[in-house]
């Protein structure tokens, strides 16, 4: 009796548990699936017209934007934040930077990873578009491919000008990619790859356009492809990178093509709109305050803007500007000295060892007791100096007072006062305030650079005065420089200079024309003159007695950032360690190993 009852119960029990368990387990897996949250697959991207364009859009935007801050890392400026404990500038000038801390202390961090992200996206696009099922005309596909290729070239150029030769990938890496097989290519190998990409992009018929249509601001154009080629080859022929692959003659060929194409077919032209005197001093100044736009209606000089509008008044402003934050890069005396007199003569021809005593060029008319008169018009557009008119619309109004005790006095104690005796004026609209930021933006590529690149290669391959010709184009190195100077209102270079003298004057011209536009940082490196330019900078202490100013040059402490290792960015140490883990090869740049 007991037994049978128990058996009966067991049976019921089993049945009960079986039902309950099966019911409960039912549909567990489905319950845990992701129903849908809007994510799509790559196949869905490249089968749809809008999404394919969306992927191309995602290939854009990885190029570091130029920013005025870069000037503080060169002999163009001493940063007023050098007194802020632990500030980037404090560390940079002190040389307290390692391959691990570089990213936290450089002007643009360490864009290595970001640029390769962009390169991968271009590679994905270029690979996927070959087999994409998206319905689009071949012509449209061609323009997409041309854009992606140009972008890829742009990103590689940004990589090599910072890091030197880097590994080249022309397709996305497989998930099981063997990292041990990767190698750093040489600088010139990468340049070859860049040139090929640009050439392919330019060769696609209906590929790239010269024009930038509505809402296309920032698009890759033929001009951009030429500018990339021009800069890449000019760098490749420069002392730091030249390994014989690219000679100045080859550079001249490419620069000639780039410049002539932009001038004859592209409709590019140096900006020469005359401003109202109450707004800007000259067209060079106006250009720096004018935003580039998609129609290129006014600004026909900008090839690719790249930089965003800056709030110069706030981040490199004067203490008398309410709401300003810091003074940022204060123009160095060296930069001020590099502006020629309006007659085309250099004011200073030499210095004593610590540059506190300058040798005045007697031909120039430079008066050390009145140093800011009669200078290159670009000086007035770029530098706020003592006694400069503060507001152009009030010519007899407030003057800038950088003298000791003045309203914008020089000070070594806080970051809102100039450290050098000068404030940055280029890109700064005097009317800018918190509620009305009307400052300018730095261009990544503009026509003046193409003129100068051409001049740099041509004076070395053909000589300063020899005309180089192409279809509809004939220009010597001197001609090219003079076009740039003429826009600024400066007299031409004298004819008949020997290449050395021309080279020196050319470098000064490039420094002045492209001041604060990031070029100086890379130029002193590729010319390998960093150890001469970046050892220290000087400033101008001005005292006022009655109505007389006394000017005293003074030297800042030595900088510890001009040795060979500073010629290139270090690759992040963690990246280097990873590569060593795969292949045993140490990718770190020279000097950063120490």
């Amino acid at each position: 009796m007991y037994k049978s009852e128990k058996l009966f119960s067991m049976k019921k029990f089993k049945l009960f548990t079986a039902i309950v368990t099966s019911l409960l387990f039912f549909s567990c897996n489905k319950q845990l699936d992701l129903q849908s949250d809007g994510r799509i697959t790559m196949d869905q991207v490249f089968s749809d017209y809008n999404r394919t364009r969306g992927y191309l859009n995602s290939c854009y935007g990885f190029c570091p934007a130029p920013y005025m801050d870069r000037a503080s890392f060169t002999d163009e400026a001493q940063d007023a934040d050098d007194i802020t404990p632990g500030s980037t500038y404090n560390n940079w000038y002190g040389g307290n930077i390692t391959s691990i801390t570089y990213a936290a202390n450089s002007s643009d961090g360490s864009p290595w990873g970001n640029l390769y992200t962009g390169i991968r996206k271009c590679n994905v696009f270029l690979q996927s578009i070959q087999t994409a099922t998206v319905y689009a005309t071949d012509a449209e596909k061609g323009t997409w491919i041309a854009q992606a290729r140009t972008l890829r070239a742009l990103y590689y150029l940004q990589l090599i000008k910072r890091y030197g030769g880097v590994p080249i990938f022309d397709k996305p890496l497989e998930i099981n990619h063997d990292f041990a097989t990767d190698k750093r290519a040489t600088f010139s190998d990468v340049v070859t790859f860049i040139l090929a990409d640009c050439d392919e992009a330019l060769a696609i018929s209906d590929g790239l356009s010269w024009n930038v249509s509505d809402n296309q601001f920032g698009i890759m154009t033929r001009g951009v492809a030429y500018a990339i080629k021009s800069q890449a080859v000019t760098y490749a022929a420069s002392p730091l990178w030249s390994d014989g692959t690219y000679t100045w003659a080859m550079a001249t060929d490419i620069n000639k093509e780039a410049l002539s194409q932009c001038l004859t077919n592209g409709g590019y032209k140096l900006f020469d709109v005359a401003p109202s005197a109450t707004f800007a001093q000259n067209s060079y100044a106006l250009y720096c305050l004018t935003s580039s736009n998609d129609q290129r209606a006014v600004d026909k000089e900008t090839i690719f803007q790249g930089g965003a509008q800056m709030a110069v008044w706030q981040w490199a402003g004067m203490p008398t500007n309410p709401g300003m934050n810091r003074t940022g890069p204060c123009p160095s005396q060296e930069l001020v000295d590099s502006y020629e007199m309006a007659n085309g003569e250099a004011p200073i021809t030499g210095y004593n060892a610590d540059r506190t005593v300058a040798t005045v060029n007697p031909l120039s008319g430079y008066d050390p007791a009145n140093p800011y008169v009669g200078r290159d018009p670009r000086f007035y557009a770029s530098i706020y100096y003592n006694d400069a008119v503060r507001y152009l619309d009030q010519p007899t109004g407030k003057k800038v007072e950088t003298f000791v005790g003045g309203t914008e006095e020089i000070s070594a104690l806080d970051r809102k006062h100039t450290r050098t005796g000068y404030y940055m004026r280029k890109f700064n609209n005097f009317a800018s305030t918190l509620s009305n930021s009307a400052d300018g933006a730095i261009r990544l590529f503009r026509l003046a650079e193409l003129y100068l690149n051409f001049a740099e290669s041509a004076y070395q391959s053909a000589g300063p005065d020899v005309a180089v010709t192409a279809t509809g184009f004939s220009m010597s190195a001197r001609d090219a420089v003079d076009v740039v100077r003429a826009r600024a209102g400066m007299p031409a270079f004298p004819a008949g200079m020997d290449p050395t003298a021309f080279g020196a004057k050319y470098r000064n011209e490039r420094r002045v024309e492209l001041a604060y536009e990031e070029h100086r940082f890379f130029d002193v490196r590729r010319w390998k003159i960093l150890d001469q330019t970046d050892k220290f900078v000087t400033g101008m202490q001005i005292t006022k007695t009655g109505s007389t100013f006394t000017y005293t040059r003074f030297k800042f402490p030595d900088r510890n950032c001009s040795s060979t290792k500073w010629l290139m960015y270090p690759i992040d140490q963690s990246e280097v360690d990873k590569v060593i883990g795969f292949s045993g090869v140490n990718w770190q740049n020279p000097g950063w190993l120490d």
Partner: protein
Amino acid sequence: MINKMIHKLMIKITLLLAFMLMISFGTTVSAQKQSASINGMVTDEFGKPLTGVTINDENGIYGTSTNLKGEYTIINNENKMLVFSYMGYTTQKVTTGENERIDVQLKWDADNKDEIIQLGYTSQRRNDVSGSVATVSGAELEKSPVANLPMTFAGRLAGLTTQENNSELSRSGTSLYIRGLSAARGNNPLVMIDGIVVAYNSAQTLDYISANEIESVTILKDASTQALYGIQGANGLMVITTKRGKKGPVQIRTTFDQSFQQATTKPAFYNSADYAEMRNQAAFNDGSGLNYLFSDAQIASYRAGDNPNYPNNNWYNQYLKNTGYMQRVGINVTGGNDKVQYYSNVNFMHQGGVFNTDQTKYNPEMNNTWVNYRTNVDMSLNKYLKAYVRLAGNIKRERTAGVGNATIYGSLFQIPSATYGPLTPPVLDATTGAVITPGQVITTEQVGSPTYGMLNRTGYTRATVTNITSQFGLDLDMSFLTKGLDFTGILAYQTNGVGVLNTTQDYERWIRTNNLDVLEFTKKGSETDSPLAYAKDQSFYYHLTYNAKLNYKRDFGKHQVGAMAYMFYQNLTKADNSSPGLLPYNRVSSGAEATYGYDSKYLVKFDVGYSGSEQYARGNRFIATPAVSAAWVASNEAFMSNLNWLSNLKLRASYGKTANDQSGLVRFAYLDNITATGGGTLVYLQYLINENQVGNPNIQAEVSTKQNFGIDLGLFNAISVSVDVFKERMNNMVVSAVSTIPLYQGVPLANYPQTNAGTFDNKGYEITLNYNKQINRDLTVTVGGMMSYNKNTVVKVNEAQKTADYAYRKWQEGYSYGQEFGYLVDYSNGNGFFNTATELANNTLAYSFGTPRLGDLKYQDLNTDGKIDERDKAPIGYGALPLVTYGISGGITYKQFDLSFLFQGVGQFSSVYSGWGVFETSYDGAFGALHQDAWTQARYDNKEKITYPALSLAQSVNHQTSDFFNYNRSYVRLKNLELSYTLPSSKSNAISAGKIKFVLSGQNLITWDKMKSKDFGPEGSYAAFPVYRVFNLGVNVVF
């Protein structure tokens, strides 16, 4: 759809149970025959009445408990056996027979063998536990006069490491770790409250509970106790059981506490003259000459204090009150009969602020008010069916200034005492004296937001947090199928809503000009004075849990057999409004357990968890976590029964697996996450494809394999010793690609798939020792100690090896999680500084981060390459968690007096500190205690004490991670002391109260530590709210 199906299913089950309830109601209730009642008294061995002894019949159907006089009355209707149980005493069974009075004397059991240990879904008699657990009662926790429950845990549970990482009054944050870490990340244990898993935001949920509503807290430490919980078990569990109604007379217990709170540490604060001198000294060291920043005359003016241009402000005293006040009131009501038992509780807490404010238009002073309540009702519906309802709620009202209290507290140390302020002098009309321009808030160049402004001119925030937990359960005795079988179904819902009234305001900042001879100010920044603006902010989350459980428990003679199976489905949302975090989270878990015991001597337990997480692809979604454990209670063997001194000897062992799905992965990490949106760089392209996480279809739950070996020893029925040794290994820890995959492959590393490629080890031991003895009727003595040691090792995290010229080529693998690396100071010359010009000149080591000056630190060139750089860094300290935690507690009960104490501490723990207050260069020079005796030539020449390298205005070679800044964070603390006096019952009865107790208690009373300075304590950091010391006066009245 599927959700609905499960939902419907659950509704059906509930209806089914309700139906069964209805048809069986009434048929059984009247079947009891009424007989005479039994009276009696329960006492201890010395004849002292015991209050609250539970008395039940064998089946737990009829019961009661003793009153304050130890008396009870129970209906004697079955003429069977009565079970008397009371914590700390051996459970006694008495056959009622025909007796009308049964007096029972309970036997002291120092080993608590009959205590029921709550293990989450199951419970076991302590004697039968074969795994590893630690428990503490709510009554113990209640001794700590603090508002946040996690603050009461320290030193009370062997194997639990607590870290108080935020000490803001009544809003503290404590991280809890069971046996340290199970993986290389800081996962906290799974918290379970009354059988319901709190899968999200458990730290906050713990704050919603007051210690006085807690019956017990158990931590589950080994695989055999964790395996059942599958993917949620690997980090250990904390099982909290709240009080339930007790059969017996109604008991009302009220408590009132008034607490006084004082900071335990206070950073050094220098007067303005000292500050100026130290800044000058720093400038001098930097090569700027004497009196670079302040002239002697200026310093003299600061010191004289008679010129308002040269102020000396003590911001700390100005803004901070010395004492905070907290009041707590609690009422507990419990009672019940055989049909209904109830426990009801309400607590009220008020925390007063510690800031001095100066705003008349609104009140920005911190202030917290909490009310929480809990009602647990158990009902016996009929012979087979029981039901229970648990409702708890918490309403918090918290007010702070427009910025958080911690930020405001920290800001006290930013602006130097020499700064004029806090407001600019108002501009007055010369003739009328009327204010033309009111004072504006003064700050400095380096300080963005000064204390005054944050406290008085940023508005206020008023947050109302409402947390409601409801639980409904039905318990069906299925003995109609087979005896001992029982089915439970639970539906639980926790909802949490936060409504915030944000009022915001901004204010102008002004800076004094550099000329100290005049009071001139210039405006800083773009901020303007703005009127108060209002905004409302809210967030919400919920947990919805369905739980079904089958339980089987039956004794066949000496064979004790038990089995359990459960099924759990949880659906929750987080307070996260971004995709994919806003989608509800789902979890399905199940598990089964089988136990077998023979004669309470040989015990075996098998567990298996089978649980699934939506985090993984279908093929990897579910994981089984089996475990087995066994125990041998040797002292119950016949051959040992004559050893009277040996009251307990038990050997335990367990082995098994438990898992974790909280691996720091993004949601749905097995899927690629590509989305299409608008935007992008080129407007004309219109669309933008975003490539986010790259999925890893093979990602799966992390599995931890754990072993535990333990021994419990009881001697003379007074001393109990317990030792556990454990070893854990996780072979498939989820590791990121960051450390091996190069960036140049082009997928941002944050999006690169993570893999199960890591290995993590954890091992250690716990020892507890207790002496627990009732000496006589009036005197009981308890002394105990516990110590735990956990050491983890990161075995494999895919770390890339550093180059051969590194002194240490790996900085993670082979070390504990959170291992710090830094330079080692070269103390070979005695003090580690460059003391003389010769010594500096002879230095051949090039520092890669600057040039050393006189008085700077000398570092060791570990790789002997003549340079000091990253390659010379060496391991410093022990990792992220202390290796050793311990507690020593005890108490004496003598007549009406009760004294208890708790010392708690950690050992083998250190951290490298940096930044503000540790470094002197932050803001406008923020000096801590060590900086006063910084290196100077004079100090060195005079052989004075030197506590810091030469000061500097800007970063110098000293400001590197080095062992100079390694602070030993081990400490011992008199954590808690409580003295109470209970009024003799004659007196309390006079005011018709059963029992009146006066309590004097303290928390964090004394700390002994080895920190380099007294600026901050071993648990805090400079400028963070310090640990607070609490003095408390309390009264408990029981009616």
